[in-house]
């Protein structure tokens, strides 16, 4: 294997692949990046056996071949190299030289055969999606996944693929984010997948928004690819809870709030809120939204902002960090809350949103008495 590559191209490829390389691993070869040179260019791949990323970049290939090189060292070297063409050549099965101008390195790697094979994925039965659509779905929902291990199914984002619709749902049981985007997929495009959010992060990093992404299915895998890059991931198995059933349909109190002022009020209140519950009491009245925090051992806080509110006045407690997170991903400056009672789920939706899809977040209140 011998090729010459522009330093920027090499760096770009390594930045994309490096996040897929595990920091600690029991399998030494996983700390390496697989480098494969062919007539089309050079492909760099990294995986932790759950999520795999590979990127192809143009290069001047003199002799095709493959081997694996340590990801961390290769990345650090590349970052420090002068802006000149980089020449990489294999010395046998597990060593390589790297030359750039007057800089020379010899690196120890591992043979290509030791690198695990990627799970087979079938693209023919898959479908194609615009990258920007995926980006938006992911960024507006993935934040809501659970990080607790007690309900592993909630550690993933539910992705529902229908002929006319893409829907992503994520929840940790206390708050939920759901987004739908219209889509024109082929007939028979259908499937529910529970995808680890880490894989979706990679999708967002690796594919630029304007690209068209092909999506393929494996036995228990899902893969995304463009002509130059691919991300594949193991799926989380199991039945996702019935999210549709918990979305309230009969909420009859509404509030429209200015998002920036709500966010800053909540952040102020959160300072004196309990470290465990982050509880802030919100009191909705016709024109005024009052905030109250009372935390034994810490202190108290009060604040108020204007609000357009319809319905009987309402006192309701929330975990301020859940509200703040939801508000961060709301696309509009004004948001609409709906409530039923202080014990039922509240919904948050963007007000006057120009987007084509549907976006709704749910948050369960905190009990006010304890």
């Amino acid at each position: 294997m011998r090729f010459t590559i522009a330093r920027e191209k090499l760096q770009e490829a390594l930045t994309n692949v490096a996040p897929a390389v595990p920091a600690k691993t029991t399998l030494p070869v996983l700390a390496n990046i697989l480098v494969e040179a062919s007539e089309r260019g050079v492909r760099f791949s990294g995986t932790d056996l759950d999520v795999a990323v590979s990127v192809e970049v143009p290069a001047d290939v003199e002799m095709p071949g493959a081997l694996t090189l340590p990801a961390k060292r290769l990345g650090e070297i590349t970052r420090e190299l002068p802006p000149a063409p980089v020449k990489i050549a294999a010395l046998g099965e597990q060593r390589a030289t790297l030359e750039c101008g007057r800089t020379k390195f010899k690196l120890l790697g591992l043979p290509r055969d030791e690198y695990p094979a990627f799970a087979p994925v079938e693209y023919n039965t898959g479908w194609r999606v615009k990258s920007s659509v995926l980006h938006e779905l992911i960024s507006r929902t993935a934040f809501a996944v659970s990080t607790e291990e007690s309900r592993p199914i909630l550690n993933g984002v539910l992705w529902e693929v229908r002929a006319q619709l893409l829907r992503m749902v994520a929840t940790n049981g206390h708050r939920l984010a759901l987004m739908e985007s219209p889509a024109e997929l082929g007939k028979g495009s259908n499937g529910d997948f529970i995808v680890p959010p880490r894989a979706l992060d990679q999708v967002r990093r690796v594919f630029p928004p304007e690209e068209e992404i092909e999506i393929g299915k494996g036995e228990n895998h899902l893969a995304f690819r463009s002509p130059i890059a691919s991300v594949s991931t193991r799926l989380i198995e199991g039945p996702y809870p019935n999210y549709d059933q918990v979305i309230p349909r009969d909420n009859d109190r509404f509030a429209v709030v200015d998002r920036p002022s709500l966010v800053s009020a909540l952040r102020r209140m959160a300072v004196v809120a309990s470290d465990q519950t982050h509880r802030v009491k919100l009191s909705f009245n016709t024109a005024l939204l009052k905030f109250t925090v009372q935390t034994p051992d810490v202190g108290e806080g009060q604040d108020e902002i204007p609000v357009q509110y319809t319905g009987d006045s309402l006192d309701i407690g929330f975990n301020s960090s859940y509200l703040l997170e939801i508000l961060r991903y709301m696309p509009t400056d004004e948001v609409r809350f709906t409530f039923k009672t202080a014990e039922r789920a509240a919904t948050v939706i963007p007000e006057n949103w120009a987007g084509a899809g549907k976006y709704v977040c749910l948050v369960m209140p905190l009990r006010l008495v304890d």
Partner: protein
Amino acid sequence: MDLAPQEVWSRLLECARREIAEHTFRTWLEPTQAVELRGDKLTVAVPDQFSADWNESKHAALLTSLAPIALGQPCQVEFVVDSRSRQRVQMDLFVEKSAHATQSTKTNGAMAAPRPLLNAKYTLDTFVIGKSNELAASAALAVAEAPGRDFNPLFIYGSTGIGKTHLMQAVAHAILARKPATRAAYLGAEQFTNEYVMSIQARTTHDFRRRFRELDLLLIDDVHFLKGKEATQEEFFHTFNALYEGGRQIILTSDRPPSEIPGIEARLVTRFQWGMVADIEFPDFEHRIAILRSKAQQDHLQHTIPDDVLHLIAEHVRSSVRELEGCIIKLIAFASLRQQPVTVDLAIEALRDRIKPTASASGSDGRGLSISTIQSAVAKAWGVSASALTSKSRTREVAVPRQAAMLLSRELLNAHLADIGNAFGGRDHSTVIHSLERARYLRAADQEFAERLQLAVLELPAGAA
């Protein structure tokens, strides 16, 4: 009474504070809230079932007696679990619905709690209490009265077939009869291990944990089977802690006391000893008769087995209660097969393998002779306690009888060196070899030693010399 319940309760508490130790008051009575006053009945909410039971038994009477002083009229205090404090502060999108569902099934009928696999015959009524098991039985009665309180865990040990499982299940029966909604589980340590292994294979350890850590009553039989199973012990350790901290009752049985179970982690052993460790010994003669009578009565056989037959069986069958019961069953079967009434002669014939004719009863019987009987006989002859023989102590007073007991174990039982070592406090087989040499030498050289040894041999059951 036109006072608000809160006012009534705070006046009562004011009075009670003077009567009750400060820390007790703060632990049990302060975190309460008056809920309702109906007539002269005051309902007070407490955080959990344990405090409800505790307050009910320890403080309710005092509070009731204080009522006329504090309020000028009688008032009865009743403790209930605060339904609000049982809920978490953060409400859950998915759990909420299922919580309602379980609540409604609970109110629909108490049958919601899964029934553990208990033997219907093992109840307290059929358990015959005698000298050998009265400690264990009274501990069990106390547990049945107030699970999770004084004797937690209850650890019952004793050799096979003398009623450990019976007693343990009897407690469960008693608790379930009183509170049918109790979530109880009975299983052997072996089964616990298997289920844990299966849950690892099926990747359902989460369900496994939930199943066991949300119990009110956990019965584990033959806990010594956990020996050497490290991962299971780890799991059991956490299960134990979860239950113990939640004030749930745990009952364990084993064939030996916690400290003598080999291959069990020290942290588990100490936990086993936290509560009550009670042993069941071999029943004595009178007790055996009582057991046989009770057994005959249970099976409605009182007319067919005469007393002298019961005496015969009780005299000869000494190893376990299970064997006693086995004799009765065999005898009845034999009698009905022959269509003859039960007599002493018939019993001797039917139970040939167990009852030796009187002539040979003094001969070596083999049954009932074990290292532990030798230990107690030797201990008696030397005037030391049997537990000293298995202790770590190496003082002369203990070491000599220990060597003697090892010698008898070797010569009478032909026991393996390693087994002897184990039975004498986990000693090495080379220690046993040395002890045997030493004892043989003493027997030849020391007249007094030889006499005591002879004395010990005479003490052995059925004169096994």
